[in-house]
């Protein structure tokens, strides 16, 4: 019927282009173009064009306001500067703090997700409490934690309730031995709930029969966690560990909104932001951005390779899982089969 419709239309419009445009093939091409023009234009304008410019600017000495013909080509000087200036590449060391924080965050999220995925009274309430920080805007978090860490304010008061003396407490945002940890704690505070929700989702997708069988067999919760939960959500945990590495390298928000990078809390991107928008050394900032992007790509490629490996593993995992289920039905010897699944 579709054919007859297009035929009658073809007879009405004898032009070649219109004939084509009315055919199914033509319509497909037209709709593809019509639906893709705007998104691709936006993608090009706000991602790939700036990306190209960034690479180009990184070879120049320039400001935003410098006219095109006044820009000085300096070759690799900006890149050399990135590695030689103390404030640039050295700032990447701060990422280590954030990596440690990210690991703590993942462990905490995993622990709480496990608790919440068993039946707990008020579980949903606690889940909501812990997730909500994720929905607060960066600026608001900045104010909340400036207030929280101010001398003699919230955090100090709570520690005093716990028996600490105010004189023995450091200045949380000024003392260079502790301030980066304060910021990392903020980052953990903000994101652990989101990680937790992610893990709960993954845990919930595990077949409930497995828990039941394990429980009937007298496995305690730690055993259930070790032998059932952990193996089945391994993929998503690995994914998050890898993401947290790239995330730590590009840590920006907490120092930007809370300390503005003062007192040795300026991470790589905070410094870059400062160089670009305050000092207006656009070339240097671009070189910094390119260097970090290269590092992030390297991490991503490693991640992809790693995932190929994990994926191969996951397939065999699936098989043993099926075998496990069959065995469960046959003899209900859950413990033996779960142990085999891990092995």
């Amino acid at each position, binding site marked *: 019927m579709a054919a007859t419709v297009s035929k009658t239309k073809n007879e009405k419009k004898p032009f070649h282009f219109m004939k084509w445009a009315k055919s199914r093939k033509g319509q497909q091409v037209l*709709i593809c173009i019509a639906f893709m023009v705007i998104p691709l234009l936006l993608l090009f304008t706000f991602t790939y064009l700036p990306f190209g410019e960034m690479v180009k600017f990184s070879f120049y000495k320039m400001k935003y306001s410098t006219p095109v013909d006044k820009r000085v080509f300096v070759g690799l000087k900006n890149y050399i500067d990135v590695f030689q200036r103390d404030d640039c590449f050295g700032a990447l060391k701060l990422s280590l703090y954030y990596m440690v924080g990210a690991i703590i965050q993942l462990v905490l999220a995993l622990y709480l997700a496990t608790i919440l*995925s068993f039946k707990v009274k008020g579980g949903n309430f606690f889940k909501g409490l812990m997730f909500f920080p994720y929905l607060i805007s960066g600026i608001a978090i900045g104010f909340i934690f400036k207030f929280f860490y101010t001398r003699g304010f919230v955090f100090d*008061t709570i520690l005093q309730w716990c028996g600490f003396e105010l004189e023995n407490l450091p200045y949380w945002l000024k003392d260079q031995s502790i301030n980066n940890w304060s910021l990392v704690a903020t980052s953990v505070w903000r994101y652990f709930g989101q990680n937790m929700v992610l893990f709960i989702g993954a845990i919930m997708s595990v077949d409930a029969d497995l828990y039941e069988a394990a429980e009937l067999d007298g496995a305690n919760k730690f055993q259930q966690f070790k032998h059932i939960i952990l193996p089945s959500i391994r993929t998503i945990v690995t994914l998050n560990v890898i993401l947290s590495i790239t995330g730590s390298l590009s840590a920006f928000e907490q120092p930007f909104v809370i300390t503005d990078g003062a007192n040795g809390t300026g991470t790589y991107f905070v410094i870059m932001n400062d160089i670009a928008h305050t000092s207006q050394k656009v070339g240097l900032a671009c070189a910094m951005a390119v260097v970090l992007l290269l590092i992030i790509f390297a991490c991503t490629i490693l991640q992809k390779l790693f995932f190929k490996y994990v994926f191969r593993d996951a397939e065999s995992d699936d098989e043993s899982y099926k075998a496990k289920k069959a065995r469960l039905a046959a003899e209900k010897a859950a413990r033996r089969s779960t142990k085999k699944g891990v092995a």
Partner: protein
Amino acid sequence: MEKSNLQTAAKPVAHRRKHYTPGGIIWLIVEYASLIFFGLCAVIPVISCVITAFKTEEEYRSTNVMTLPESWLNFDNFVKAFQAADMGHAFLNSVIVMVCVLLVSVIIGTQLAYVLNRFKFPGNGLIRNLFLFASLLPSVAMQVTVYQIMTNLHLVNHLYGYIIMMCGTDVISIYIFIQFMENIPVSLDESAIIDGASYWTIYWKIMLPLLKPAIVTSCILKGVGVYNEYYAANLYLQKKELHTIAISLYTFVGPMGSQYNLICAGVIISLLPALIVFILCQKQIYSGIAAGAVKG
């Protein structure tokens, strides 16, 4: 992993028999103790703000920050903060930005997902990869040169400029749409074609209505993101009358920097909408978080 995320209907963990062994009781105590402890950790910073927001100037100076306010009905700070930061105006701007960005990104996102998912053409894979690659670029780094481009296009200090930019940097929702579309059977399209429907009709009359759950999820996620976005907003909306809610809080930097009773009130006002949305749409938010994780 994709499979696990699609099973959003949470299966209850089986608990048929409860036997209280000593170990079980200790575990139970540990369980609730950790929940309460970390729950408190999560809310105390916010609660302390709420407490302070209800204090008068006098009270704020003379009492400890964690002392409860004399009256929970003292809304003076909220009124003052609302006026000082011109939050009425800022709310309006935020709403305009959000409505436009959500509308545009839902339309172009679903259209792109429809084309990428339903038609095989040379470059299909390339376009997917271009979007995937774009999601790797940290936005803060990109803003160094996006700023230059925005200036050249005369989009700085215009609400529409900011809106256009925000529409362009969207990858997660496209992935949510594509993922969801993979589960809509192609036979639906085919039978519509046999009935003589054009591709536009298929998109508009079949796909869009079926995509509703995915659209809700992506709107909530993106909506929260846009509402809270402050970095680009601060760069591109420098005029005070263009401020969105997130950056209207910047008013409190500077001369008002130590009046925390006012600042806290402002912060609380700014996060109220997020709180309301969260309470109303918990489920969609949680499932959206799970869906968004797939992109990595």
